[in-house]
């Protein structure tokens, strides 16, 4: 950080401490700003969730009103309710459950993608591949799981190994989805 002010030598230490407290102040201002936005969201009350869920070739939901969405992410599965705090996340292979209302819910298997919750309470989930649970072929999953395990052991370098491990994780998630 450059102030552009020439300071006498003696005052240098004082100036540094001022600068340091200034950066601290900046951080706390940011913190405050965050609290304010959180407060604003609470005040808005129960808003409708505009939920968009799409893959590159299909739109499953477009600005739809739903009750809750359960999403698989790297930090574990989490639920999104209306008025969720703004959030960015990426998906890992797993099941997305969309609770449309109290009675009905739909389950999709997603490969990967992004989750955005905006401050206007709109939610966007963009998956590279999203398929309905009933379209999974259990036979193909079992075969793939065996093949993927073999591939992990056969991988010759770090990169191939990592790719094989990703594959194995994905098959395991698919297997879990069918069983659960």
């Amino acid at each position, binding site marked *: 950080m450059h102030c552009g002010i020439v300071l006498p030598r003696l005052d240098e230490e004082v100036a540094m401490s001022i600068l340091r407290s200034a950066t601290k102040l900046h951080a706390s201002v940011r913190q405050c700003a965050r609290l304010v936005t959180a407060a604003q969201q609470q005040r808005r009350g129960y808003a409708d969730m505009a939920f968009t869920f799409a893959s590159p*070739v299909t739109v499953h939901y477009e600005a739809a009103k739903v009750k809750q969405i359960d999403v698989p992410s790297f930090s574990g599965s989490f639920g999104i309710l209306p008025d969720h705090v703004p959030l960015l996340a990426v998906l890992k292979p797993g099941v997305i459950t969309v609770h449309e209302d109290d009675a009905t819910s739909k389950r999709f298997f997603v490969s*990967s993608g992004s989750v955005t919750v905006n401050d206007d309470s709109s939610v966007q989930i963009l998956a*590279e*591949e999203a398929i309905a649970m009933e379209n*999974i*072929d259990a036979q*193909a999953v079992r075969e*793939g799981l065996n093949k993927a395990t073999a591939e992990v052991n056969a991988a010759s370098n770090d990169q191939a190994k990592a*790719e094989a491990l990703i594959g194995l994780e994905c098959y395991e998630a698919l297997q879990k989805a069918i069983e659960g």
Partner: protein
Amino acid sequence: MTFWREAGLNYVRYSQICAKIVRQCLKADLREAAAKRNESTVKAVMWKDGKPVPAAK
């Protein structure tokens, strides 16, 4: 950091691998149409100092 990032992969590659697997696990009647989504035709040519550089591989 995740193991695949350490191995030099990025999330787009991660996503591609998973998406391909999910497509393979579709029921047979849907699998063929989905397999088309694996395909890509685009090829890249790097440029340096105003000239294309032939691929290093």
